[in-house]
């Protein structure tokens, strides 16, 4: 039996399974689904599709010392009468911050970008039953930069880089880009940050059968001179092995 507010959450099951609901909306959906059989059924039906997604990833071998690090941590946990309820994440935060410091880079945990803040406000709007479309009016702090394409190799390709406020994830969207013969074994598009003479691996770009795709650059493009896309072997390369097929100048 559906809950009285079922209409509001009818399309939320998929976003919930993809971890794509903002926190407040996720909490509201969790409360709703407990009393709504159709939504519970939808969650269970779509779960198999979401569980298949990580299996699409090119398998890579983790570094050998990761195994030792994990087992050392487990041993320490055992010897310290590990608290099963203690969250592990603060250790990650501390280590990431420590690596920032050791690299001479401040942690720079900046306030969220304007569009992230807007998302939070919008989440509150959803919970309050407001019309979210009215609140989405474009984000003035975002910048869209068109890519330059090597037309001899990407005949119909185009790309746009969405540049949010500094340090936040950037997103490269492409269209008209051919899929490589077999992205799992023979090649993949790799995204690079260019800073001076450095070429820094930034992301892998998946392209669908219709030639469109998108790659998230988690560390953002702040202080990068350009973003490049090249064709590389599965799993990515240490450095570009060809001239970029697509580039975005950030000068």
């Amino acid at each position, binding site marked *: 039996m559906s809950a009285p507010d079922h209409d509001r959450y009818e*399309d939320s099951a*998929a976003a919930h399974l*993809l*971890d*794509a609901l*903002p926190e407040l909306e996720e909490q509201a959906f969790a409360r709703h689904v407990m009393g709504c059989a159709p939504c519970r059924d939808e969650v269970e039906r*779509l779960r*198999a*599709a979401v*569980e*298949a*997604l990580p299996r699409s990833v*090119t*398998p*890579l*071998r*983790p*570094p050998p010392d*990761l*195994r030792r*690090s*994990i*087992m050392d*941590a*487990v041993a320490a*946990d055992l010897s310290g009468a590990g*608290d099963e309820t203690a969250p*592990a994440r603060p*250790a*990650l935060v501390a*280590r*990431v911050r420590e*690596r*920032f410091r050791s*690299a001479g880079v401040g942690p*720079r*945990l900046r306030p969220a970008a304007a569009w*992230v803040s807007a*998302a939070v406000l*919008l989440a509150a709007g959803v919970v309050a039953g407001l019309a*979210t479309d009215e609140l*989405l009016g474009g*984000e003035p702090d975002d910048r869209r930069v068109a890519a330059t394409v090597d037309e001899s190799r990407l005949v119909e390709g185009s790309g746009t880089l969405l540049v949010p406020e500094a340090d936040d*994830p950037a997103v490269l*969207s492409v269209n008209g880009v051919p*899929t490589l013969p077999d992205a*799992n074994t023979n090649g993949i598009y790799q995204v690079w940050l260019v800073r001076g003479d450095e070429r*820094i*691996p930034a992301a*892998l770009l*998946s392209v*669908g*059968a219709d030639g*469109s795709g*998108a*790659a*998230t650059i*988690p560390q*953002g493009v702040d202080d990068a001179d350009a973003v490049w896309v090249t064709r590389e072997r599965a799993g990515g*390369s240490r450095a570009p092995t060809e001239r970029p097929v697509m580039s975005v100048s950030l000068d």
Partner: protein
Amino acid sequence: MQLVQDGDPRAFEVVYDRHGGPAFSLAYRMVGNRVVAEDITQEAFLSIWRSRSRYQRERGSVRTWVLGIVHHRTIDALRRNLVHDRRRTSAEGLEEREAAERTEVEVVRRDEARTVRSALDGLPGEQCRVIELAYFGGFTHMQIASMLDMPVGTVKGRMRLGLEKLRRTMAGEAA
């Protein structure tokens, strides 16, 4: 898994040996940075160890459970903006670990990845894009709506349609 739940670290090593590769691969696919992917994988496995008593076989395979925790941890890192300027430490690529000889398990996993990738590629582009931005990019539906200049309802609808089609495709292949 019963031995792991009883607190046997050697049994946990076996869990890592079986699922550490897919876990690391997923984290790397999401953050595009080797060092951060290692950090996340380590924290995820420590979390798995600590929460081992909560695993319920009837709710899914160990692999699904492990990858779900890795995914949540990576989303958490992405949203908390921890994946920052790791550029100098990320310069090392992964090609050296793409060993010329592959184990039988690795071959099976590559075949599996190819199958699921093919099913994803079979989705309409706009459905595949919102699913990938959400699952691998860690973005909320509202952030995706803002990026792609489309209403939130459209994004959620495309997620739903895409997952439904993916489910049907995968079920058909398994039949």
